[in-house]
């Protein structure tokens, strides 16, 4: 596996981002939109059959050849200087949507004290039923108005990987750090995103090639 990271990353310019200060509702739509778009090359395809064009629906790539059909599962959060300050996944959004009443907070706090998952689940179910309906939780204007920086995952030192790193090393780092994606850097600048799905595909292809 001689590839290096920059050969397999998604360029930052093509990756879905959202600005610091956006609300949870805006993030939900942005992530939904990102999920239905794919990475597209600039190469035109000689067909008008949309089914062969995957999901290249954005105007910039309409009619272009799809590179792959792996949807984006995360958004990058950028600050006013264009710097990536966090990531937002579906899990982060589901966590943000969690009810934040006193009962739920207590249940969260006792997690670390060795109670079983079964017991915690039962407490959560009881708390849900006691407090409100699911519909009301998801319509709470306070929750929908939360800012992305309140529930995003802040980028940490081990979220970054240099663009010239080998894919074998990248695969190891993603596995050991339990990362679904890593930010690819050229010196100090973030130039792309390396996704687990892309690394996995390459690794598997290499495995198959050895047969």
């Amino acid at each position: 596996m001689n590839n290096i990271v920059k050969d397999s990353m998604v360029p930052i310019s093509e990756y879905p981002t959202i600005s610091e200060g956006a609300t949870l509702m805006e993030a939900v739509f942005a992530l939904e939109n990102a999920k239905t778009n794919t990475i597209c090359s600039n190469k035109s395809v000689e067909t008008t059959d949309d089914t062969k064009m995957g999901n290249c629906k954005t105007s910039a790539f309409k009619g272009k050849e799809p590179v792959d059909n792996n949807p984006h599962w995360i958004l990058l959060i950028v600050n006013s200087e264009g710097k990536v300050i966090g990531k937002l996944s579906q899990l982060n959004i589901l966590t943000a949507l969690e009810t934040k009443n006193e009962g739920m907070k207590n249940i969260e706090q006792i997690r670390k004290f060795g109670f079983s998952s079964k017991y915690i689940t039962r407490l959560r179910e009881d708390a849900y039923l006691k407090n409100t309906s699911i519909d009301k939780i998801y319509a709470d204007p306070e929750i929908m108005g939360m800012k992305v920086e309140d529930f995003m995952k802040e980028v940490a030192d081990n979220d970054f990987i240099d663009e010239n790193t080998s894919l074998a090393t990248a695969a190891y780092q993603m596995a050991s750090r339990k990362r679904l994606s890593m930010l690819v850097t050229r010196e100090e600048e973030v130039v792309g995103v390396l996704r687990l799905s892309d690394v996995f595909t390459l690794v598997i292809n290499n495995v198959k090639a050895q047969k």
Partner: protein
Amino acid sequence: MKELENLYDRIIQRVNINLRELEFEVNPYAQNAIPLGQMIKFYAFFGISPHHPLSFQFKHSNLAGSYFLGHCNVINSLLYKSDIRGDELKKKGDLFQYQCFEIPVNRDEEINITDSLLIKTLVHNFSHDPETLEEFFIKDTISMNYANIHGSPSDGCFLGPFATADLTTIRDCVIRRFAYVQAGEVSHLDIAAGTVWVRNPGEFNFIYQHPVDELNDYIFISPTAPPQGLFIDFVEDRKEAFQRVFDVVNIEHSTSVPTSASLDRYAVVKPTTTIGENVLVSQRAYLQNSYLGKGANAQENCYIINSQLEGFNVTAHGAKIIEADLGTNVFVGFNSFLRGCPDGRLTIGKDSIIMPHTIIDVKESLTIPPGQLVWGMIKDDEDLANHSIPIEKFSGITSGISMGNMYFEGNGASFVTAFKDRIHHILEANGAFFNGSEKKGHAQKNQYISFNTLQPYPEGHKKGLYPTIVIKP
């Protein structure tokens, strides 16, 4: 006093290193707790008796106002008005039961305190850790006012005021104010203020969280202020009475004490108090106008005021009982605060268990029926209904229950049995069941203790440090 300052800095640094992962800085808390100037004012003392081991080593330490009994070593540490009670340590040849193992004890157990700062802390019982049977260690640890380190080896920990580690090996943990932990072995945990946690893995798990806003009225501490609140005011108001018993060399209590009972010469007893047979009153206990029936006990830092204890009552370390009537076999856990008032007394029915760190503070009379399990913060009948349950009903729990801020998972009968067994053991160890010739405990053995005092360097760069002292039989 340069050496003392260096020692203090060294301890702070070592504890901070241990707690770096929890991002907890001990310095502001410890600095406000006790001015070093105070640490040169008081003598230390140790007990000698034919019933207890005698082996002390003190090296490069300050021991101001602290008491030692049994087998203790203190190195590079600052101990301020703390009680190090080594009268329940294991002996060579004992068999320690752990799960299905019977582990032989190879040598007499010793309490080893190194690189630690203990303020008005009680250290008692023995190591319950099967990995360290012969050593009850306390290292790189800071404990604040009226903390209890009870059968709990500790390494790299901070215990806030009125916190308790009970039968638990604690490593790199912060146990904040008025939190109680009895969980076998814990590490790298930051236990919130007012948490009461009792766990036996595979059997049961109990946790209660005091409402912090209300708890702050009783005990509060911040990086900019020393411990304060009702608990501190309560003990400060009675400080002078202790001053007298520590200043006088030979003290005679006016209260009549049966031959089977023990009243420590460093306890305060005010009229009109009655002490029954087989009663144990430990040092730094405070009794006033109270009745202690047969087999009752008042352990270190307990206050029993205008109260009646019918008999076989355990009042665990630091518990306070004011304007209350307790039936027989009532257990009051560590640091609990039970306060009625002259026009509204608190009555607790027999065989009840008041969980450690419970606060019952009532302005009108409150009656707890017999056989109740009680926890939390209770100020009226409604609170009582939400923070108690008949022990019999609790014993029937097979999976779990939650009531307000209390969560319990596991087998209720197992939990109740564990508590009852322990209460029985405490009464037995304290000599409550002494029959005139057999079943002697602390109440009988502690009658024959004589005390010796130790003093630090009075001046110079070693001012406040005690010289290296080795005391053997």
